[in-house]
């Protein structure tokens, strides 16, 4: 089963829920941190890293000896990533989406592909828990291709917990697609509710069963609960604001480490998800 943990708004507690859930379940579990722009799960899981891989995406390189300056590559490219200027063809590798169109269209076979570094993937363990995350190279704009690479590590037959990025655009979709369940973490504030509605819209487009965790549930107002009730979205867990939790988080400690009594609550959360997602 794949459970993706998303939120719309940032800072609502996705990583807190993902990491605590992952360490609370005793069976075969892997956690994939797909918030590759700002991955944080490793700060709490503290895995022993066994493998580091550099991930690249193909981008064009032009052999000017072969090029006839016909301009077809610039014509097919939708991203202005290759242009003909005077007597030369200039690829802008940072803009390239790696579609391969220029390679395919070139009548002189003058274009080959080289790699642009997207970032790294680190793979490791903490006790029985398998840990994988991607880290986008600072300066790299495109996170979805790296997210898709991280998701290639999904092992069928295990429980896969995905820590998704905030927002509702392409990186979030790449982190939720094909999940069996999306757990939306929100906070009961106007910002939390507004962004939750967007996240629910995204989950509905993908048609994935979903439920809510309300974090800092005693701050703000009751509008999130009213919304969940009206929309028929189950509230699967509430985490009250507790300075002890916030301070533990600030030091990189998980709730279940600082307050072991929470382990049962996260297990219960998992069982509720299992029941809904089958």
């Amino acid at each position, binding site marked *: 089963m794949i459970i993706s943990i998303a939120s719309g*708004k940032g800072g609502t507690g996705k990583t807190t829920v993902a990491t605590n859930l992952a360490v609370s379940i005793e069976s075969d579990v892997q956690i994939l941190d797909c918030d590759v722009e700002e991955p*944080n799960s490793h700060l709490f899981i503290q895995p022993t890293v066994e493998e580091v891989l550099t991930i690249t995406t193909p981008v064009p390189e032009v052999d000017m000896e072969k090029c006839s300056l016909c301009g077809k590559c610039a014509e097919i490219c939708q991203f202005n990533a290759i242009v003909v200027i005077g007597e030369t063809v200039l690829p802008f590798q940072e803009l390239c989406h790696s579609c391969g169109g220029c390679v395919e*269209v070139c009548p002189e076979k003058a274009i080959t592909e080289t790699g642009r570094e997207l970032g790294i993937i680190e793979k490791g363990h903490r006790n029985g828990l398998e840990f994988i995350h991607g880290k986008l190279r600072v300066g790299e704009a495109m996170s979805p291709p790296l997210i898709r690479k991280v998701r290639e590590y999904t092992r069928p037959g295990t429980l896969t917990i995905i820590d998704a990025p905030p927002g509702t655009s392409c990186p979030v979709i790449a982190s939720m697609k094909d999940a069996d369940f999306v757990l939306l973490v929100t906070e009961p504030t106007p910002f939390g509710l507004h962004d939750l509605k967007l996240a629910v819209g995204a989950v509905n487009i*993908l048609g994935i069963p979903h439920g809510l965790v309300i974090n800092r549930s005693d701050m703000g107002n009751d509008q999130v609960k009213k919304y969940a009730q009206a929309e028929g979205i189950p509230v699967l867990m509430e985490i009250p604001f507790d300075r002890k939790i916030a301070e533990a988080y600030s030091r990189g400690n998980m709730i279940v480490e600082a307050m072991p009594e929470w382990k049962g609550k996260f297990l219960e959360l998992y069982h509720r998800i299992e029941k809904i997602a089958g």
Partner: protein
Amino acid sequence: MKEIVIISGKGGTGKTSIIAAFASLAENKVLCDADVDAADLHLIVDPKINEQHDFESGHTAIINQDKCTECGLCRDLCRWNAISEDFVVDPIECEGCGVCYYFCPEKAIDFPLNTCGEWYLSDTRFGPMAHARLGIAEENSGKMVVLIRQEGKKLAEEKHLDLLLTDGPPGVGCPVIASLGGATAVLIVAEPTVSGKHDMERVAELAEFFKIPAMVCVNKFDLNPDMGQAIEAFAKEKNIGVIGRVPFDPAFTKAMVQGKTIVEFDSRSEGCKAVREIWQTLAKSIDI
């Protein structure tokens, strides 16, 4: 014209609450919400929309079943596995590269322009505002960020205002990169947690990469003063101006619930005092 962009790396550190407070404090400015993916500033500043426009960007392939001979070339060429065995394009997977459209021997593929959101020019009780809404599950957020900042600048020029206050997106990827180019300075709102420090370091590196001067303030400083100081020490080492500390203050959430800035809600609160000092330091440092 000057532009301050507020970013954070990590989401939920308080960017929007702080920029809303700045909206109360700054003069002669235009507000710009460049967090187009999950825009929230409008919930506080309550814009009255004067102009509304579609945002068109990128294309999606659509196969015309009447013309398609199922030769399979498009499926061979598509690197996104966006075309199903029965030759239907999944619009979520389609990257908009146009390779299938270009090569289809039957010209059976259409490639229309996408409408992927809306953008607005508005008035607020704090002055004019440029903001946008990216459609759910849409791409091209970076292009939308570039557009909304340009529109914000135009608005400022028209109204003879000399400051753009821009609420940036979280992360370090495409929309954040799009929010940095040409900015006078960025203010990084950090939180004193291991995640906050980790993410602040990455976004500081990004600002350095694009050579944009950066300043930092630590929000909820008293939650973990040691971590707050560690962030400040990192900033000093990187020549990033440390321009203040904001205490953990429930008044921020209470103000948000009422749709007010903290300055409007309780100008004597600790949070408001701290943000006011930060604003004064920031304004001085960019000469406004």
